[in-house]
Structures are given as structure tokens and as C-alpha cells.
């Protein structure tokens, strides 16, 4: 249809994006390594209460990123079980953009949310070195990356459901 451009424009402005910036005293290569090597990625990725186990990480354009997201704190394991969710799930992703020490994008297939049709979600990280610091800008699409799972377990999801009841449940 010829409304494609308009939809894309609306997409750009109304699809919620979250941008987070941090400045680190580091070399850009050090930060880059935390995103693009198995050991680096495993050292920080994932919500609190989870750890990741990387099966494949190919830091090149279109390269595979395949990992397990595993609940590893007793509270998180209990919470996941209570919700009837598996305590670990597999994530299939790829490096959809990669410009060494400059910019990368990780596109994940979100197919582990009950009742939600599989779709893709992309995280972009950009690096701006200046002197002995690097500014890192991360752009997120909050519906839904793996933080969403964490939010589900913490009840944010149920807050949203309450919302749905309030706004969506009215009979007409």
C-alpha cells in the first residue's frame, strides 16, 4: 500500500524507544570486547538474577549470537517457577550491524514469551571515544527484550494487565 512511508514515520515517532547513555573511563576496545566476545558478553549481559551462557557469538555482520538466559538467584528461580515459566530460555540473535569500535546492533528473535507471537527486537550500541573516556549510547526497543522477562517476574507485567483491565476491559 502507499501508506508505507507514513506508517514508517509514525513508527519512528510513536514506537517507544529508550536511550541510555553512559561514559566510561576506558579504551573503546575494552568496551567493545564486552559486547563482542563470549567471555565479555557473559560477564554482564542479562537482568539481575539471571546469567547467560553463550553457545555462539560471531561478531561479524549477520553473525550468530546464541545464548541461554538462566535464572540463577534462588529468588528468581522460585519466581519463575511460581509463574509456571522455565528457569532458562534460549535466545537466538544476530549482529545486524557491526562497525568495529563504533556501532553495533543486536537483533533478537523474541519467541519465548507466552502468548506473544514471535517478533524481532533490536538493541543498538554506539561508542564515542574522547580522550581517555568513551561515551556509550544504547538504544532499546522495550517491547520486549529479555528485561521484559525480568519485569514479568517482578510483577510489572501484572501492573500492565491491571491497566488492560482498566482501559481495555470495558464492555461496549
Amino acid at each position, binding site marked *: 500500500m502507499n501508506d508505507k512511508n507514513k506508517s514508517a514515520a509514525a513508527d519512528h515517532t510513536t514506537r517507544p524507544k*529508550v536511550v541510555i547513555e553512559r561514559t566510561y573511563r*576506558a579504551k573503546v576496545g575494552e568496551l567493545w570486547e564486552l559486547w563482542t566476545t563470549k567471555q565479555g558478553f557473559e*560477564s*554482564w549481559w542479562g*537482568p539481575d538474577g539471571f546469567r547467560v551462557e553463550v553457545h555462539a557469538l560471531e561478531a561479524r555482520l549477520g553473525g550468530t549470537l546464541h545464548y541461554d538466559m538462566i535464572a540463577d538467584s534462588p529468588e528468581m528461580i522460585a519466581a519463575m517457577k511460581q509463574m509456571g515459566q522455565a528457569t532458562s530460555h534460549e535466545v537466538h540473535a544476530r549482529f545486524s550491524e557491526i562497525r568495529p569500535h563504533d556501532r553495533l546492533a543486536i537483533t533478537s528473535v523474541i519467541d519465548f514469551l507466552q502468548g506473544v507471537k514471535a517478533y524481532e527486537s533490536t538493541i543498538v550500541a554506539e561508542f564515542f571515544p574522547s580522550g581517555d573516556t568513551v561515551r556509550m549510547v544504547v538504544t532499546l526497543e522495550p517491547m520486549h527484550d529479555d528485561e521484559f522477562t525480568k*519485569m514479568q517476574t517482578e510483577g510489572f507485567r501484572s*501492573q*500492565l494487565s491491571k491497566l488492560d483491565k482498566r*482501559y*481495555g476491559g470495558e464492555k461496549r
Partner: protein
Amino acid sequence: MATQLDTFQALADPTRRSIVEALRNGERQVNDIVEQAGIHQSGVSRHLRILHKAGFVSMRPDGQRRLYCLRPEPFRELNKWLAQYRNLWEARLDRLGAALKKQQSSGKPPNKEQDT
């Protein structure tokens, strides 16, 4: 058939987002939305019903016309949700910062499990 849509699902559809976009400047009737969003009328009516049901849009009759406008409440709630989401990511980047420090002191990336 009409299952309850969650807040995100309501906005997940690009056509619905362009309708929301068209309503950002204030109250509109269906024809204006059709023109502004460039979508066929039957599509607009269907999506307006969904947005109305999900609480994003309210409608008031004005003679023969039906006027639609955005309701602020779900957007406010969405913002609140996004703020919580942001906090979780801030925490994740705190961990990245901590991992970076360990990497700098040891010369190689740390192992998350070993060091906590």
C-alpha cells in the same frame, strides 16, 4: 473473537500507530484520519475500535459526526512502565561498568559467576 489487547499489542500495529499519530494534533473525525493517515476508511474504523477498546482513544458524538481524540491515561502508564524498564537497564549497565573495571584490572574480561 475480540480478545483483550494488552497495552503494547494495541500499539504494536503500524496502522494503529499512524492513527495515534494523526490524533496527536487533537480531535478528528474518521474522514480526517483517513486522509491524514492515508489508510482506507474500513481499516481506520476497525483500528479505531481496537484503540478505543484498549483505552487509547475516546469518542464523542457531535450531531451526525463522531469525533475521536487521544486519552492521556494509557500513555502516562506507558511512560511509568518505560521508566521502570529504564531502571533495569541502568542496573545492567552498572554491571557492564563493574565488568569493565575487573577487565581493566586483570587485563581480560571477568567471569560473572566467579567474582560475585
